[in-house]
Each structure stands twice: as C-alpha cells, then as structure tokens.
C-alpha cells in the first residue's frame, strides 16, 4: 500500500514538474464555431512542426464575451482572443498587447484593418466580410429582370412589387425571404441593415463615430424595411417568430428571390449553384446610390493577451505569423475556412474561393464604393435589442415608426451616456 502511495506521489510530482517546465504555449479562444474544425487541424499541424502546443477552444455561438470573461481569469488564460471593434476594445483594452512592429501589422493590406488605441495597435483584422441582398438570378430572369439593372432603390422596389404581385405565376411565396426577428436572424436588420443609415450619416457629417446619432437617413431605413416586410414570403405580423433557418429554407427552396445576408452564408445556400446567385448592394434611396457597392468590413480582430507570460505572447505572435505566411496556414484560412484575409500574403492561389466574394470583387473592380461597417460603433448590445424590438413591433403593427426613431436616436444618446 505504502509503495503505491509513494509511486502515485512521485508521479504527481513529476507531472507538476513537467508542467512547470513546459515551454511556451498558445491558447486561442476562437469566436467562429463554423471554423472550429479547421482551427483544430491547423493547431495540430503547427504543433507537429514546431513542438509548441496550440490549444483552440471555441465559444458557443453568442457566448463569446461570457466565455472570455471567465477564461481570462484562469491560471492558463487564452493568449489569443478577439474583439469586435472599438466598442468591444473598450472592455478589453488593458488585456491587449501592443502589436505594432510585428509582421502581422506589416503584412496588413491596409492600415484601416489595424485596431488602434492611440499609437498602439491593439488588434488586427483577420477576415473581411461582405453583405448585401443575395439574389436568385434564375428567378429574377424568369420574372424578366436582370440583377445589374436593379441599381437604385426605386428600381429594386418596383421589381419587388411586380414580383410580389406575380408570385403565383412565378411559383414563389414572395419577393423577399422572411425578415425573421427571432434572435437567430434579427441581427441582419437591427445591426447590418441599420448600418446603412449610420453609414450615410457618418459620410455626410464626415465622422467615424458619434455619441449622438441624428437619424438623418432614418426615412431611408424605413423605406427599405417597408420593402422587406411588405413584399415578403409571409405576413409582417409573423416576422416576430421567424428564424434564420426559415429564411434560408425559403431561399434555397426558391420560394423567395432576395435574401439579405453575407459571404458567410455561402455554405447554407450553395445548393442553388454559384451561377444562379449574385449580390445586390442594399439601396435605401440615397442620392448617387447607383455607385454604391456592397457592405464590406470586419468585426473580427485578433488580440494577443497582454497579461500572459512574455514567452507565451511571443509564441502566439510566432504562431499567427506562421498562419499568415506558411503554405498550410494560408491554404487553410483562404480555402478551408473560406475567408478573405486582409494580409498581403494572401494573393494568387490563396485568394478566397467563395463565389460571393467574387461578386464583391467585381463591384469593386467596376468602381463602386464599398459601404464600410459602422455597426461596431453602435453604443451597446442593449441599443441593438431595443431597435430590434421596435422594428418587430412596427412590422406587426403593434408599434409605429416613431418608436423605431426613438429607439434609434434617443436610445443611442442614452446608451452612449450610460457607457461613460
């Protein structure tokens, strides 16, 4: 008995020593569940090559902040995590290591993809995404329209009204797929669609963020929202319970012609075939919008944990540099994960294979101006929720548009003040 105890104790001691002497390691708290398998694979390859252990943990959808909050307290905290932009950075700025001068920053294709606080680079974007109104060109042509002709709000609205009126003849349920306001889908409207009036206001005022939004373009927001809810596959009152999957099912089942979403949705809708799909810019009836492109930007920034041990920090930066320069890393990010990666090492065969990305590239090549992502400047999650509630109530008729305006404008100022 005593021998066994002694053996066990010895084993425990060895283990403790072994962990104490273990070399630097990397722990990545991943945000995107869709790409978990690819990150795990990449981590394994890196460990085989260099012997540096890389752990990848993926937070469940919608729980990233909570997971990060508890993980970062542990004795082995994540060395690599992400924030969604300036508002997210406000919470985590003390934990972000200054990346200035690293290869990561040098390889960025544009300075705009570095998340800065003063002169310090607190985060670097690792994926650029694009959204707009995904359209089924086969159905559009059947209805007698060409996607490239729909280059203003009025033309889009006229086409939608016409398609809606002839829905029985075309064998569809409506022009737009359901704009579901369930939490699996409402971000498409309370966040992504809401970016449009914010973008134009920022442009008009020449600003990049604000404590008090004026709502100059809210009438335009109403126009596009009216279009989405009135020319759709279901009654506006039912939108409150429609989910993201409902919209996907309608679109893939060819029951709707338009579907607002982004490049990340490609896997869901690829059954329709790349040749039958395109993306339209979200027109909201602003002067000169025929030159408007798709909404392109990022809300995914890598941050290196500043409170980790220096050797772990160095190991993490080395890992990231390997990811963006090695063959395996570049192939994995661009092909397997399907990302558009904003580093100058991703050219030629490492460009993204996602057809929706190609659509975006075509718009840019044609000289259209991409709409930037301004929603990371929205004051809080609570603001988005209140705008979402107001949109839902307006759609169902239990609330009016004034409610949306209040939530948008007054809510913005209130939330911005509360965040002080």
């Amino acid at each position, binding site marked *: 008995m005593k021998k066994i105890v002694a053996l066990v104790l010895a084993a425990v001691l060895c283990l403790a020593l072994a962990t104490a002497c273990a070399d630097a390691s990397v722990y990545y708290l991943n945000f995107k569940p869709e790409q978990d398998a690819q990150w795990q694979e990449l981590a394994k390859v890196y460990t085989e090559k260099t012997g540096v252990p890389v752990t990848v943990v993926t937070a469940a959808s919608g729980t990233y902040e909570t997971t990060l909050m508890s993980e*970062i307290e542990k004795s082995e905290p994540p060395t690599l995590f992400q924030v969604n932009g300036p508002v997210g950075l406000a*919470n985590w700025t003390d934990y972000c290591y200054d990346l200035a001068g690293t290869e990561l920053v040098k390889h960025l294709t544009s300075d705009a993809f570095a998340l800065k606080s003063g002169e310090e680079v607190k985060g670097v974007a690792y994926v650029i995404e694009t959204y707009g109104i995904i359209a089924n060109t086969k159905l559009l042509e059947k209805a007698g329209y060409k996607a490239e002709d729909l280059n203003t709000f009025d033309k889009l609205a006229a086409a939608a009204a016409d398609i809606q009126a002839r829905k029985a003849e075309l064998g569809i349920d409506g022009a737009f797929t359901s704009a579901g306001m369930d939490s699996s889908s409402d971000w498409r409207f309370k966040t992504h669609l809401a970016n449009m009036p914010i973008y134009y206001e920022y442009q008009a005022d020449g600003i990049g963020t604000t404590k008090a939004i004026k709502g100059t373009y809210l009438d335009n927001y109403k126009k596009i929202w009216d279009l989405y809810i009135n020319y759709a596959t279901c009654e506006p009152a*039912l939108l409150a*319970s429609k989910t993201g999957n409902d919209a996907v099912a309608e679109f893939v089942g060819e029951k709707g012609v338009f579907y607002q979403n982004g490049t990340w949705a490609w896997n869901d809708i690829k059954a329709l075939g790349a040749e039958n799909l395109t993306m339209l810019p979200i027109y909201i009836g602003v002067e000169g919008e025929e030159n408007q492109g798709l909404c392109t930007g990022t809300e995914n920034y890598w941050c290196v944990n500043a409170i980790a041990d220096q050797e772990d920090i160095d190991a993490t930066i080395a890992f990231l540099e390997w990811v963006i320069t090695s063959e395996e890393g570049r192939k994995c990010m661009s092909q397997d994960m399907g990302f558009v990666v904003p580093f100058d090492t991703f050219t030629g065969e490492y460009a993204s294979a996602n057809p929706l990305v190609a659509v975006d590239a075509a718009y840019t090549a044609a000289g259209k101006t991409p709409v930037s992502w301004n929603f990371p400047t929205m004051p809080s999650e609570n603001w988005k929720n*209140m705008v979402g*509630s107001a949109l*839902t*109530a307006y759609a*169902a008729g239990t609330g009016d548009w004034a409610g949306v305006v209040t939530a948008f404008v007054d809510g913005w100022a209130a939330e911005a003040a509360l*965040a002080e």
Partner: protein
Amino acid sequence: MEKSIKKYWPIFLLPTFAAFAIGFIWPFLWGIYLSFHKFITVSKTTFVGLNNYVKVFQDATFVSAFWFTASFTIVSTVLINLIAFMIALALTRGIRGTNIFRTVFFLPNLIGGIVLGYIWQILLNGILTHLGLPLLALDARNGFWGLIILMCWQQIGYMMIIYIAGLQNVPSDLLEAASIDGANSTQTLLQVKLPMVMPSITICTFLTLTNSFKLFDQNLSLTNGEPAKASQMLALNIYDTFYARSGAQWKGIGQAKAVVFFLLVVGISLVQLYFTRRKEVQQ
C-alpha cells in the same frame, strides 16, 4: 451506531459542507464584494462605494421588471397551488388509473426550462397566429399569460406529489371521527384535511413563490423580455444589465441588482413562511 456517528460525523458532513462552501458561500461573498466595485474581470476591480446601488434604483427597467415579476409571482403561486391541490384531492380517492395520472402530471417537471420555453413558444405562437392575435414577442400581456401557462404546466405535477403525500398522511382515525360526527365532505376538507396538510402548503407555497420570483430560463426562452423589456423579469433584467451593455461599470451594477434581488427573495419568503407556519397544527 450512535457512537460511531459521534465519532465519524465529519466524514459525513465535510464533503457536503465543502461543496456548499465552494459552490455557494464563497461565490456569494464574492458577489457582495463585487457589488461595490467596477470590474470587467474579477481579478481587476476598482472600489466605487455605494454608486452601483444608487444606479440600481435609478434604472427604470429594474423597477418595471420588479412589478412584472411580482404580479407573475402572485398569479402563478395561487394558480399552481390551487390546481395542484385539486388534482391531488382527485387522485387520492382511489379512482382507477391513479398512478398513470400521477405519472402523466409529473412528467413535464422532468424537462428543462429552456427546452420547455422554446416548445411552448412554438405552440402558443401557433395558436395566437390562428386567432389573429399578436405573437408572444409583440404583446407583453400575451407573454405574461404564456409564462403563466408554461409554469403551471411545469410545476403543477411537482406540487401535486407533495400534496398527495400530505393528504395520505392525514390520520384515518381523524377522518373516521369526523364522519361519525356527521361532517360532510366540504367540512371534512376545510376543518380536518386542510389543517393537517398545512406543512405541505407551507412547502409548496414556498417553492412556487421562490421559483416564480427567480424565474429565468423560461423567461429567456419564451419571450426574452420582448417587446422592449415589457415581459422582462428580475433575473433576466440582471443578466441583461451584466451582459448587454458596454462599459465596466455595468458589471458592478448587475452585481448590485443581484444582491438587492437576493434580499427581496429572502424577505418575501420569510414573510410567507411566517404566515403559513402559524396555521400549522400539531398532530
């Protein structure tokens, strides 16, 4: 036997006590500590004194969540106990299939609150659509009654079991004596059975009262506080404060709300225990 218990009691007591201390006392004390601080992670905190508590009472959503919770608690406590007691009465009469009925009524209790919330959301929205009424997420009144239906469905079975146990424990000689004295069934129920099952009533009202007051899962999944927080209960309000706002101070305010919430729950349940205990009789 008694001797060995005297000798070995720490072995029996310590694991449970350790679990209680680690899982309850320690986080609880931490929670109180944090409610006086501003923090993002609990290792870096800044003391802010009573500021968080001041903000709690300035927050209109917390007050409206309190009233929604209070009315929900009253309605659900009354309904659940009343219906559970009536079913328990019916199922202690020895009618055929009593055991099957008991099992069926108890079953909903075995399903988790989140799952129940989503299932009932689909069911109730289906009915509301059919009737042409606003869906759960659009009308706080529908949300309120949806929650009541859901909670009744889930809790009645559990309370029924406790009431059945209570009713079966009423001594048969008392019932016999009552019938010899010529008491009719209503009199027996009110004068004999009810006082005898008072301990069960204490337990059941305590459970339903605190469960309803602390309700979170079902609220989150059934209505998520929609429309615009009008169906938000206290627990969800705290969660929302903690996670849905940006800025370090909100974590502390959420924590302060949680402490206020704890005091409310303790206060209300102590009052309830005092009143129902007084009615209990010794056998």
